[in-house]
């Protein structure tokens, strides 16, 4: 388009558009990185949320040139490529396509896309200490931190419509609330007793679907004490929207104290629980 000789007097649209685009990008990219970026969720409470935050900032920043290209183009076209006010309808130039532009476009988009996929894969497998960025990785996680298997194991049991948590290292005690110690590697094993739920510990950055009969593994290490919301993220029936809970990240000693108290309190019930297992098959399947 740009190399065809412009008709005499006609502005060099290609150059003008390119300048506008460059300026818009040059403004928005730093704004995204330094002004908007720090406010993008999910915060910095854990290794997972920090990695997710970084990914979001990178993607938002890379989106800026694309967004600016289309916006400046639309604005430029609306201003400069209008039909005249005359009654007669005039045709535009019969441009049918430019192979060079098309090939450049394909090459650039392909490069960006493949780069994004590579970045995403590397990030998924290595970021946050190889924790899988808090996503549910199934029974055989690909991204495993060094402490996998030796970390604090917490089983998250989803049932209609309540979350309960079992700590196999503490006698398999089941608790109604979730507490984890700070600066400790935690390994979640998420499962369900009935339908598909999804364990979303928002400020912790962990999201793993609870599938009955399956074990979904996710890893996290919290760096700060505080509380986090737990919400069910997969429609599971009547009270899906009410299947909420609050979890706490507490200091190591506080956690030890808490779990001991839970073990004592629920001892009569822990005896009745089935032995700890990564998945449970509730029976009977159909009453009646």
């Amino acid at each position: 388009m740009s190399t065809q000789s412009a008709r005499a007097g006609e502005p060099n649209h290609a150059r003008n558009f390119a300048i506008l685009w460059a300026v818009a990008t040059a403004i928005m990219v730093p704004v995204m990185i330094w002004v908007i970026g720090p406010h993008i969720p999910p915060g910095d409470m854990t290794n997972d949320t920090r990695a997710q935050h970084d990914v979001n900032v990178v993607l938002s920043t890379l989106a800026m040139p694309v967004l600016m290209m289309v916006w400046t183009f639309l604005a430029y076209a609306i201003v400069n490529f209008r039909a005249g006010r005359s009654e007669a309808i005039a045709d535009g130039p019969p441009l049918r396509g430019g192979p060079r532009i098309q090939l450049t476009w394909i090459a650039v988009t392909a490069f960006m896309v493949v780069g994004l996929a590579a970045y995403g894969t590397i990030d998924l497998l290595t970021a946050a200490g190889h924790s899988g960025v808090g996503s549910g990785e199934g029974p055989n996680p690909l991204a495993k931190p060094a402490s996998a298997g030796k970390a604090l194991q917490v089983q998250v049991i989803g049932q209609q419509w309540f979350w309960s948590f079992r700590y196999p290292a503490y006698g398999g005690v089941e608790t109604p609330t979730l507490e984890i110690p700070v600066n400790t590697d935690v390994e979640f094993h998420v499962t369900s007793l009935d339908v598909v739920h999804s364990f979303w510990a928002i400020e912790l950055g962990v999201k793993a679907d609870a599938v009955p009969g399956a074990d979904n593994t996710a890893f996290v290490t919290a760096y700060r004490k505080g509380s986090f919301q737990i919400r069910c993220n997969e429609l599971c029936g009547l009270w899906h929207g009410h299947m909420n809970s609050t979890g706490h990240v507490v200091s190591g000693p506080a956690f030890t104290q808490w779990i001991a108290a839970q073990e004592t309190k629920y001892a009569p019930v822990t005896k009745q629980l089935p032995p700890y297992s990564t998945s449970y098959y509730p029976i009977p399947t159909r009453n009646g």
Partner: protein
Amino acid sequence: MESASVPVSPGKTAAPRLARLVGFNVVSATILAIVAYILGHKLGAVVGHHTTWNTASDQDDMAIFFGMGFAILGWMAGLGFFNYPLGRILGRSISLHEGVEEGSAWRYMRLCTDHKVVALQYLVATLFFFFVAGLNAMFIRSELTSVHGTLFPAGNYLTLVGLHGTMMLMMMSAGVIGPLGNYLVPILIGTRRMAFPRIESLTMWLTVLAGFVLLSATLLGGFPTGWTGYAPLSDEARAGIDAYLVSFLLIGLSLVLVGLNIITTVMTQRAPGMTWNRLPIVVWGFVTTSILAVLSAPVLAAALVMTASDRTIDTTFFVSSSGGSPLLWDELFWFFGHPEVYILALPGFGIVLEILPVFARKPLWGYKLAVSGLFGVALMSFMVWQHHLFMSGINANLRPFYMFTTELISIPTGFIFLNGMGTMWKAKIRFTVPMLFCMAFFFNFLFGGLSGVFLSDVPSDTLTHGSFFVMAHFHYTIMGGLVFALMGGIYYWLPKMTGFRLNEALAKVHFWTMFIFFNLTFFPLFAAGMLGMPRRVSSYNAALHNLNVFVSAMAFCLGLSMLIFLYNLVYSLVFKRERAEANPWQAKSLEWQLPSPVPVYNFERLPTITSDPYNYGEPDAPPVADFGRARVAMGEAGA
């Protein structure tokens, strides 16, 4: 809804009117469907009576499925779809034409083999259900104005959510290829009818039936699964989900038949001179959509039947304690579900690229690139479905692969943007209402596409999967993309389809209010999702209260803008009825060379195509078709 009051031509007596009423039409179909449902229900109760759990649960799914199955047959019989096959079996000679008498408005209420009538029937049906689903959306937003949602009991709220989603997706799948595909494909390729006109009408009436079957879920206790129907909640659910299963099955069947019809028509009935290079881009859009529909809908049908059998004959496809797996449903559903969303998107691409050259007065820039983009998207849409399951505990080795394929699909999608920008480059743009909708398409779909890149990246998806971010993403692509393109298409083609002009001032008000309020409604939802609001909840974090109230207010305004559209349609088509000229947009494509509305047999003589429809700005370019010296097609009157 079509106004039933039509001026009767003088000379018609009352008896023929009664005969028409009692004949094969929608009224007899409704009556027969209800009677058949009752019969089927009784039969099903007998068949299923030995299952002990029916007595305990007070819910006879077998009876409901039998009833609905019989009702479908009763509906089809009442409309007259069995007349031709039965007549031929009995050795009678039956006309292939049904109800094509020109000028009779009653043919809109029955089986009609005129593709233009079917298209208008489709348009009314999909717009009706679109508005019903939109009403559900207004109810949903009302519920979300309070943090703990107290307007609807929790179960009914979930039914509302499910009805909104399912109805929109069902109706919009047929929402463009139904009305516009059936209308435009024969005309644009220069033929008189679709390859299978009777099946064309069947798909339309099945779509209508599917919509009403889905609404009947309300009477059966509602369904709690949303449009995705995840198992085993679907196995656990009350009887309303049987309505969901049957209606989705009908739509699946309808999609396959529509797809086969369009592909066959385009492959075999193109006029002389209509080479593949001259095929209008909107037809390419319909063809690629049809390929997707034909290949993906059967998988959905299989999954729905599996759920139905889990609920009736005690199979355990999705019950893990008996050897099944909920992930099986997820995989089957999304194998259909992802091509389904491209069934929604591709016609939108086609419409926009068809309309842009007319109002830019320039050829479509990069025709071959556009076609490859459409095919690229269609082909690759079969290879990305696991991105809906990134957090579900699928084999972790699969995630990088599907991340890659999902990122890859944005390459052909990007071609559409290049085509659009190339067409608008150095153009002489006339800002008519269809053009405004097309430009808004690019603005909206950009947000949809970019947010899709976020979602395809697994680390980012960990935050946003299943949240309102996803909601904003697909509303930007489907509503901001497809529905805007559909609106543009309706404003563009309705003068041709009906012969009447739509009010331009009202149309512009509709456009601006819809565009502004659509963006104000859905853009904040990206933030809501990232800040921790899951989908399908009526109870959310109190910190998001103000945001939700704002979004609900904007959503109500969006609803009002749609009412302006409805008012424009009723006012212009029912009351004002101002005749439109044959070519109000000065377009060069084939349909605009015909009178408005297009006569029953489309062309007096089948044309010979001499050019593609995009030769704006080319001096001495031939017209799109030659109507004079064309060969007369074989058996012209009966074709």
